[in-house]
């Protein structure tokens, strides 16, 4: 759990750095990501080669934002088992075969590989969005596309309190584990009062925080004072990538490239 908190803080820090990607308008990044995800998952279940060019997006954004790949790869690895768990049944149930380069392969495996690639791409794109934008700016972008005020506010507050409660919880867990050596987790019998007392403390804190907000003139509006307009660069980013996604979706680029090369060699 400490890892989770550290991850949140790290992503927060990453989002606060200055680089070409972080400087883009949050709305543009949000839209690009959503479109990207839709394009990725829209490919047929046996598709592999046509999917591959889509890896350009995370790779380029990654490099432009100067992110270290290690952490994000770890995140992807963390989500993988779930997808593999369901996808692994594809080879079991799908016995149709196809011949590729003189070897016969089950279509189930193709769909499995396709699924895994999609998983890698979608997870990477999602993490990139947060790592280059940050929660508060995403909230602002959500407001622009018309998400109700109360939801965005609620989201930002939740996000803020995860860190605070996380610290409190870490202290409680430490105290618990010191008195319960060798236990894994908390006994179910004690769980209710353990979590319950954390909850009550949280209630009290919520009230104090709300009081603190009201004392500084809070009337239900979360003013971030950050209303940058969408600029030319933002539009270029959005249109450029979306065009690329659409071209990738419409033409099997690796296949074109491959036929060109094999054609040339063949002659």
């Amino acid at each position: 759990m400490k890892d989770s908190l550290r991850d949140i803080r790290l992503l927060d820090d990453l989002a606060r750095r200055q680089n070409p990607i972080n400087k883009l308008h949050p709305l543009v990044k949000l839209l690009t990501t959503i479109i990207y995800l839709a394009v990725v998952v829209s490919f047929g279940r046996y598709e592999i080669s046509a999917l591959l060019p889509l890896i350009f997006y995370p790779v380029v954004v990654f490099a432009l934002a100067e992110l270290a790949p290690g952490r994000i790869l770890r995140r992807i690895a963390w989500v993988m088992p779930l997808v593999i768990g369901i996808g692994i049944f594809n080879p079991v149930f799908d016995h149709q075969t196809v011949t590729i380069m003189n070897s016969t392969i089950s279509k189930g495996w193709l769909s499995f590989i396709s699924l895994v690639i999609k998983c890698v791409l979608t997870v990477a794109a999602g993490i990139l969005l947060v790592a280059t934008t940050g929660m508060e700016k995403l909230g602002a972008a959500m407001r622009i596309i018309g998400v109700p005020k109360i939801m965005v506010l609620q989201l930002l507050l939740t996000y803020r309190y995860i860190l605070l409660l996380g610290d409190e919880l870490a202290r409680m867990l430490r105290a618990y584990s010191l008195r319960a050596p060798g236990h894994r987790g908390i006994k179910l019998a004690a769980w209710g009062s353990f979590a319950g007392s954390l909850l009550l403390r949280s209630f009290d804190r919520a009230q104090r925080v709300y009081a603190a907000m009201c004392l500084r003139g809070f009337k239900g509006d979360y003013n971030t004072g950050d209303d940058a307009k969408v600029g030319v660069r933002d539009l270029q980013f959005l249109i450029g990538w979306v065009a690329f996604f659409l071209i990738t979706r419409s033409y099997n680029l690796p296949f074109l490239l491959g036929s060109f090369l094999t054609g040339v060699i063949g002659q």
Partner: protein
Amino acid sequence: MSHHRVEARNLHFSYPDGQAAIQDISFTILHGEAVGIIGANGAGKSTLLMLLMGILFPDSGEIIVGDTRLTPKTLPMIRERLGMVFQDPDDQLFMTTVRDDVAFGPRNYHLDEQEVASRVREALAQVGILHLRDRAPFKLSGGEKRAAAIATVLSMKPDILIMDEPTSSLDPKSRRMVMELLKSFEHTKIITSHDLDMVLETCQRFLVIKEGSVAADGPAGEILKNPQLLHSCGLEMPLSLQKCPICGDQTKNFKSG
């Protein structure tokens, strides 16, 4: 300058569970005064502050700030003039950067962004943490958090500063920093604490609270020289006024103010 005056008249307050927290408290604090409200844990100090800020409303009695009586209607106006620093800075810092936190108040009063920026700069410079403005509040040390919390209130340019335990859980150096900061403010100040040495340095007048009532009200010197009174209220003489246990010398003589 009567508009910086704070007056409490016969305040009574009980919590919903029936516990009477404040019983008949009255006092008047004049412009420019620095008043320390002291008392044991659970004496009613924090409740009193909540009443002053209009977070709670008294069962009977009234609070007057300047010439205005505190009612739900006048609340926004009065809150603009009172700035309260909470005991736990984490309750007060909830944005992702120090700058946004300090700007939170001014933005809520819809000042234009330029004015907000200059107020933020001013407030942060005043508490000496201008260099931390882009940091996340949760990454600050205890002392820095406290300074940031104070800045969030200063940026609203209040006439009266109210502080709940401003030096609790600070290391000696941070405590010293906060004390110097308090002394540098020319606002009317109301400070609650058990840290009597701090209150002694920053306030000229003491208000001792015991079981929800005023046990004593007067110049710091008189009250702190009365060990019986302090003891009966769950307090002790400030260390700076006690005999030194090592050399046996009473090195510091208190000049009554």
